């Protein structure tokens, strides 16, 4: 099949009302998506090298930053007393939040049988994993003695000590590690049929062997498919509560404390909504360029973008409701500390962050009510970017502004991030994109078999509709019917 070319009819205009542009065949799907990882290394597009080089350079920034951190200690950051947590925890929460879109798409939408998820779930799940990888750096690195992080894990030890199960930081350990484990399993299981496709399509014996190993002997038998479907469903069932639990528990890092601005009961749902909100923004931010770069417009259609924008709008409005509840809580509490917090957010030394947050997360999403905006790619890019900044600011407002001015005015101080705060942040961005670029290069970034299955379902439906309405059927895809949707061409 080395000479196989994408067999596609003339590209159809994307009218924004379909999840798969017409003109696609099983072969075209397999080759368009599957050929990206199978391209010979030297034929990798230059753009990929450029992007990877930049990301890798940032990853080296991460390396330098972490090395210096381990040599000197967390004092290289701008944190102090009273602001004991700064960009370390801001970025931790931000990254974890970004990951949520992937889990939501792959688990909840699967359970809800939303077929449109197929073209974005692999990518979103990968993003989840990479975001969790970035997030996971921070709780360990932010420790005064990071080499002792394992003391947070309950294990039998000579100290005769358990961790303190009352602390939300310990719950974080379980929440994040479970989340990471389940996500990676789900993702790998989902990759099996596609590994098999790549194995079958690969011509280089070494590549064939590698994908063959990764495919774990997948042959596409009915038994395999049956078990695969079971495993997917089970993992989706496992993942679904995680979507809610992880960020809820992270929100408890704040909510169980008594810091004004942290002790807010609305935090768990508001954090989950915020996470999905931020996650979808990030999926859009990544998917839009990749889709145009690799010519995936047929699989990730305008309709996909439109639906994602709707999810963003919905979760964004929940977040706005959360902001409203925070303000209401401050005013209604009759606690002078809570009321001062509001005053401080509105006119304190970091008021810019609060206004920035309101603009980014409340005002900037309002155009998404309009279909024209939702289907406008540049507009979506800009709004997604604004949301990513806004969600970062939200964590800044919650963590830093609250801590800067607490109960005793004598202890009030400001937090000024240092170059090492920023370099670690840039470094994790480098880690994220390095992993993303590697993923794009070596794995099918869109789920091949699910798209084919989706095509199959759509075709069947079209046939049924045609039969019902007595119309003749367009034979565009007919010649592929002999193949099973998941088998290799």
């Amino acid at each position: 099949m080395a000479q196989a070319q994408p067999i596609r009819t003339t590209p159809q205009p994307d009218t924004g009302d379909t999840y798969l542009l017409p003109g696609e065949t099983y072969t075209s799907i397999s080759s368009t998506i599957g050929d990206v990882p199978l391209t010979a290394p030297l034929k990798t597009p230059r753009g990929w090298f450029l992007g990877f080089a930049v990301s890798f350079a940032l990853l080296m920034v991460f390396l330098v930053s972490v090395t210096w951190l381990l040599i000197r200690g967390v004092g290289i950051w701008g944190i102090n007393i009273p602001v004991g947590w700064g960009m370390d925890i801001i970025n931790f929460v931000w990254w974890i939040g970004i990951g949520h879109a992937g889990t939501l798409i792959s688990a909840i939408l699967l359970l809800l049988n939303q077929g449109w998820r197929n073209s974005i779930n692999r990518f979103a799940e990968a993003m989840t994993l990479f975001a969790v990888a970035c997030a996971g750096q921070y709780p360990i690195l932010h420790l005064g003695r990071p080499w002792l992080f394992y003391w947070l894990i309950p294990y039998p030890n000579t100290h005769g000590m358990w961790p303190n199960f009352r602390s939300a930081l310990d719950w974080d350990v379980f929440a994040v590690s479970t989340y990471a484990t389940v996500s990676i399993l789900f993702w790998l299981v989902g990759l099996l049929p596609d590994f098999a496709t790549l194995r079958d399509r690969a011509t280089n014996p070494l590549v064939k062997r590698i994908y063959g190993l990764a495919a774990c002997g997948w042959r596409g038998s009915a038994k395999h498919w049956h078990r695969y479907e079971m495993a997917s469903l089970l993992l989706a069932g496992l993942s679904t509560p995680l979507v809610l639990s992880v960020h809820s528990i992270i929100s408890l890092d704040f909510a169980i404390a008594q810091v004004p601005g942290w002790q807010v009961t609305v935090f768990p749902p508001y954090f989950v909504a915020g996470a999905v909100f931020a996650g979808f923004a990030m999926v859009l931010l990544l998917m839009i360029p990749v889709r145009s770069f690799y010519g995936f417009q047929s699989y990730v259609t305008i309709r996909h973008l439109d639906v994602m924008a709707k999810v963003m709008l919905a979760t964004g409005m929940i977040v706005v409701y959360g902001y409203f509840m925070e303000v209401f809580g401050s005013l209604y509490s009759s606690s002078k500390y809570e009321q001062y917090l509001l005053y401080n957010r509105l006119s304190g030394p970091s008021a810019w962050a609060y206004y920035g947050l309101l603009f980014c997360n409340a005002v900037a999403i309002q155009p998404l009510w309009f279909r024209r905006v939702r289907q406008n790619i540049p507009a979506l890019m800009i709004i997604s970017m604004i949301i990513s900044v806004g969600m970062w600011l939200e964590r800044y407002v919650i963590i830093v502004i609250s801590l800067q001015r607490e109960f005793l005015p004598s202890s009030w101080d400001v937090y000024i991030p240092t170059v090492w705060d920023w370099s670690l942040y840039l470094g994790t961005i480098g880690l994220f994109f390095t992993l993303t670029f590697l993923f794009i290069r070596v794995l099918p970034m869109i789920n091949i078999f699910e798209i084919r299955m989706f095509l199959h379902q759509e075709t069947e439906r079209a046939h049924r509709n045609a039969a019902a309405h007595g119309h003749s059927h367009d034979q565009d895809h007919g010649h592929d019917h002999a193949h099973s949707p998941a088998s290799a061409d």
Partner: protein
Amino acid sequence: MREPSRHCIRHQASGSINVMTNSKLTSDLDAVRAQLHNARGPQLWRSLDQMADTPAFRDLVEREFPQGASELNDPVSRRSFLKLMGASLALAGISGCTYMPRTKIAPFVHQPLGRVPGVPLFYASSVLLNGFATGVLVRSNDGRPTKIEPNPQHPGSAGGTDLFVQAELLTMYDPDRSTQVLNAGAASTWDAFTAALASALQAQSGGAGLRLLTTTVTSPTLASQIGQLLAQYPQARWYQYDPINRDNVYEGARLAFGEDVTTRYDLSKAQVILSLDADFLAPGPGFAAYARAFAEGRRVRKDSGEMNRLYVVEASPSGTGATADHRLPIQAGQVAGFAQALAAKLGVAGVSEGPNSEAATRFLTALVEDLEAHKGSSLVVAGDQQPPIVHALAHAINAKLGNVGSTVIYTDPVEARPTNQTAEIASLGDEIDAGAVGVLVIIGGNPAYNAPGDLRFAERLAKVPLSAHLSLFNDETSTAATWHIPATHSLESWSDARAYDGTAGIIQPLIEPLFGGKTSHEIVAALLGQPLVDPLTIVQGYWQGKISGDFATAWQEALSNGLINGTAATTRTPTLKEGGLGGAAPAPGALEIVFRPDPSIWDGSYANNGWLMELPRPLTKLVWDNAALMSPRTAISLLKLPFSADQLTGGSIESQHYLEALSAVNGKVVRLSYRGSSIDLPLWLLPGHAENSITVNLGYGRSQAGTVGNGVGVNAYPVRTSAAPWFDSLAADAVSDTGETYLLVSTQDHWTMEGRDIYRVGKFAEFKADPEYIQKEVFKEEFGGETHKYDTLLPGTDYAGRNAWGMTFNLNACVGCNACVVACQAENNIPVIGKEQVSVGREMQWLRIDRYFAGNDLDNPDTYLMPIACMQCERAPCELVCPVAATVHDYEGLNNMVYNRCVGTKYCSNNCPYKVRRFNFLQYTDLSTATLQLARNPNVTVRNRGIMEKCTYCVQRISSARIDAKKAAVAAGSEAYTIADDAIITACEAACPTAAITFGDINNKDSRVASWKSEPHNYSLLQELNTIPRTTYLARIRNPFEALSAADTAKNQEG
């Protein structure tokens, strides 16, 4: 280490081989060792092998133990022998490894009396500030002094200390201390010095060119030695100079009485006290005793009858001013006019009243009424930095009010020779210029740095053919002098000194001098031609015959008590001179400059002491710098800022913004031009500072203080003149903005309490009427009712039947002197982190003193000082959130910090509402400097980076008291033990001169702490958070004078 190991070998050899040829054996082993000794480093082990294999070695062995080797027929013995050989060889190798100097190790053949390894011993001694002694008990852990505690028997301590006493420990262990006699900067020896001195003295017939310059001398021994010296060299002269001297005090006494008398106050009898710019609640002679007596008259309980009242008239805000019931900020130059008016109104003869401001007149009217109502129990104290006329007026007023003999006591001078020190150093300078000085011996002090700038003393010192400086550090004066002699610290040497009341105490060494060095007694003895005499002999020689009874016994008693009974200065009754008060008061200037000793580093002699350098100054909270302190109003007018001072008050949003804009002024560098010279100083706003007055603290800008103090701050001595050492008027345009800014670091930026119930204040009259009223008012404001109960759903812990530790801070007694903060730092091995780290908000002191300004009058706000340390909450928010359970509660209710378990999430600090936790963001503790390691308290863990730390109520002291109590109980055959109320004194409590801190068992209803906690004005900080702190506060009760407070009502409202 070689000595003991050799000892060991010899012992085993003789014991187990049973061959008594020890001397030969030893000498052969010595030969082996000597051979091995020459082998270096990595070669060594190869050498051993090689050596063991060589025929020469075998021969050596054969030859070495002929009797032993050949007679070892018993296999067991032979095996022992081989083992022994191996061990000997190894040990010989070990001793050959190192190049340790051959030092004496003295294992205890007889255990010294009372010494148990690990159990600290306390020795009585004295620590000096400006020559005056504070009696102390120094804790020695296995021969290392590790903490200085007050000596309750000593009148200069009275159970308290100041911050300088606490910090002396670090000065002693300062690695920057000088170790070497220097001649023109090159290493030399004591013998060379004494030889040079002897030959130089020979050239001076009758000591014509010999001059001795000392700091203030109260030491009877030193004074007597100097007396001998002056007798031996009749033409020699002795000068004294301290930059923070009491010239004005003595000149004032001479003006009033025509004779030298020392004035001492008995504050315990004073009901109404007026301070004329006198900061008597800050370190200085008699501070601890004054503060204790003052606080006794101020502590109130619900059934207290009386409370004293303090009026303060001052220019530069002080802790005394913050404590005052009424405070009047006026220029230092206006105080004399104020005192004249007061004297005139009180009817002191020969004084005429000049003009005074409206506020001052109102103040005066009330003051006169109050003073006259308390004749015999009132007191007027004049500040050391006020001119003689103010002192003379104070003497006259005290006499007029009948206070002499009651609150004011006159005695013989305590100093060996009271003198005008500024005049003395000036005349020494003139003599140098005239070429009259051939040999100048400077004992202590640092005149090249701190002499008035117009004397150019450093330049002049260079002209003296032979000058020698005895000093702890190789400082500015040491460099300018031809010889530098390292001095011993007072914890290392024998001496004596008098307290503020004249009581003499013996200074005894706690440790062999760390860096060698000589005492002042040895220097004077060298001048007397006795260069090798031992200081103990000198001091004992002086007291021989002066102490009654058997000398050996009396000496032991004096050492153990820390003082010599019956040496207090004799009381005198001087009579006021006629017409001494006629002098006109100096005219106040448009602007004035005020020089004050620094509250943390004094005259600069503590500049290299990190504990003090990093200690937030009581009112400014600045660290690591001095500044031009001025009131906001003055800053606005000098810098022509675009708003008026009146716009800053009122608490509106607008005024908040103005305040924020104003605070940007802090750190602007201004140039102060004064008497032909100028200094550039960063500006710092200090509400309550007198208008048109600028305070500059002395002691900074040292060039040779050491690694800590070099180049910190700006040296103000060059502009300080001998004509006006304390304050002087400035031209109206003397201050100009240089346009530069400088980073000034303070640990507390926020001025106000934001209307929160943090520092509770009440009035004595209302408190007497209803002791519960403060509590009621708070609840009324918060909940609209007079009482409120905080409740919780969670079950509490029952501490009944155990010790439940608790503490109270008495806000009425705290004067913000910082002694507790330094004591805590010394006791708990708290590191010094440097200006840069403090600037990002990482100060490490476990105990801090918060400062708030309250009231609407920015020119004279109420100043509140509030000590805060870990509150030891019963429901501690920190414990809940620590993921590794590194901070946990114990069965006595202490909130413990398990350093070894801490991984450093910092969550505990985030969740602590009091923000008392401190984090080692970097490796702050110096683990490499040997002397600093010696200084550490062995009973407190040294924390490394990444670890949270905080106040533990000195848990090490609790533990040791508990162990003692348990041992005593077991000895008495009982299981149950009780810890006496005074068995545990925390470091802060011990140091506190006003006894504002009380620690103890709150379950013991007879304990001091429980009795204070039962007072109605006892409250918990942030009690609405329901943390149930074990540390509580006793609200401040002020005792304003009705007539005057009516005018101040408005400003006292806010709190």
